[in-house]
């Protein structure tokens, strides 16, 4: 079953897309996702997939073509990063509001200006409220696994929402790691056939998409969308269970690491979780009860489960790889704070902004955060509720 390979994150997700063999792909190249789409378009050009590649003149057109293809009845994919995601902005809402289960690989990158091409979560966080499902991935293996699972989640008949799977630009997209690929047949069976409900190309049953909905019905459609979102976490868990059967790899709404008996904890997304786990091991060896929570499903955010997993801690630090200018805290912190707010007894909380524009997140930064947490838990006082780490003064 499957095979073990050494590939980059981009290569792994392109392989997942090859195995799924979607009907249509419309994309426009942008670093660091360019390499993913270049690989996939080579597969299409060499007849390795039956996918119709639509080469467009911008990301605005790419997402528009994805929407059209999905309305038509196809299984549709795309990939982008940063400014490309920003240019897709209005279409992201159209895709989700029309309930088109488009799957997108988002290779996270900082937003301009100043121009920067490196890993940063500003793009994904900017699109967090656009009605898409978001799965975040620590490494290339998770990016590959999430990409495959996202088809099942997005296309589930109770859901039918677009999904984006996120991985850190360059840090994961361009680094070679050991990956376990599944068999083509296993992936094909897992994702199954896609059948669009009410496709535009069913000429015997004509339908219209995109009607004008004014004050009399808009709010009801939004309420219905929220209801669908509330069902996503159940589907994510069911799909993860099925995925474990074919892969042996376990997935949940989030990953916890040495958290159960922990007194202090770090919450962090994507690749920085790996470095943080190493620092936690060092602190554990010193007898300090430290743990980690790494969200996987960021949209919809599983508030109850995250709150339950963190409520016993004395102190929590949330690391954000995206700033929210003018907001009180970083975007991940606000979710974690909301998850814990309802508890009378809750951990002391702090927020640290790190790694913007691909700035390396080093083990000494993780150790600094853990030391701060130890001190906070001991003294009961927060020294810096919000600070930037790894920045020159």
């Amino acid at each position, binding site marked *: 079953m499957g095979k073990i390979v050494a590939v980059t994150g981009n290569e792994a997700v392109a392989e997942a897309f090859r195995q799924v063999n979607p009907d249509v792909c419309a994309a426009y190249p942008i670093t660091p996702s360019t390499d993913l789409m270049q690989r996939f378009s080579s597969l299409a050009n060499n007849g390795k997939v039956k996918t119709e590649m639509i080469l467009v003149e911008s990301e605005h057109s790419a997402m528009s073509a994805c929407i059209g293809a999905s309305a038509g009845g196809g299984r549709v994919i795309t990939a982008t990063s940063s400014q490309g995601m920003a240019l897709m902005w209005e279409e992201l809402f159209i895709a989700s*509001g*029309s*309930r*088109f289960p488009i799957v997108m690989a988002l290779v996270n990158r900082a937003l301009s200006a100043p121009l920067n091409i490196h890993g940063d979560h500003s793009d994904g966080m900017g699109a967090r409220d656009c009605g898409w499902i978001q799965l975040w991935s620590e490494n290339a293996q998770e990016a590959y696994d999430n990409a495959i699972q996202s088809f099942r989640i997005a296309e589930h008949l109770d859901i*039918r929402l677009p999904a984006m799977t996120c991985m850190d630009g360059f840090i994961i997209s361009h680094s070679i790691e050991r990956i376990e690929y599944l068999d083509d047949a296993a992936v094909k069976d897992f994702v199954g056939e896609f059948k669009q*409900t*009410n496709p535009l190309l069913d000429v015997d*049953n*004509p*339908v*219209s*998409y*995109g*009607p004008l*909905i004014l004050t*009399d*019905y808009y*709010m*009801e*459609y939004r*309420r*219905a969308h929220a*209801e*669908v979102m509330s069902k996503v976490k159940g589907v994510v868990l069911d799909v993860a269970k099925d995925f474990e059967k074919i892969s042996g790899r376990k997935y949940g709404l989030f990953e916890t690491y040495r958290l159960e008996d922990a007194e202090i904890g770090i919450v962090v997304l994507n690749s920085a979780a790996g470095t943080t786990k190493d620092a936690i091991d060092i602190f554990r060896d010193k007898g300090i009860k430290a743990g980690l929570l790494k969200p996987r499903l960021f949209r919809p955010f599983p508030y109850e489960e995250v709150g339950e997993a963190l409520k016993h801690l004395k102190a929590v630090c949330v690391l954000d790889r995206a700033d929210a200018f003018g907001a009180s805290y970083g975007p991940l912190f606000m979710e974690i704070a909301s998850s814990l707010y309802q508890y009378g007894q809750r951990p002391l909380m702090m927020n640290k902004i790190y790694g913007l524009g691909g700035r390396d997140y080093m083990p000494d930064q993780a150790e600094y955060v853990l030391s701060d947490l130890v001190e906070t838990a001991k003294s009961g006082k927060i020294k810096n509720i919000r600070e930037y780490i790894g920045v020159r003064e």
Partner: protein
Amino acid sequence: MKQKGWKELKPGAVVTEPGSALKFKTGSWRAYKPKWVPENCIQCLFCWIYCPDMSVPVKDGKRGDFDYDYCKGCGICALECPGKKGNKAIVMEEEGK
């Protein structure tokens, strides 16, 4: 018509019934109302051709009075109307007068 609750809506606001725009009456948007003056009408049907909606009913090749359920008062019919001997067969009147 009783309005539906959010649980009764079709996913993605898809419209599965062809021609259902008939049920969406837009006449209340109107600020000016076209008035048909039959004695000046030469039945050229320019108004029927130019009407962006379906406010000019035609039967047996001849137009009848306006269907105000769909007329938004855009005034295109009045502008295009050639009338008879310089007298328009369609004139715009302010609503509520």
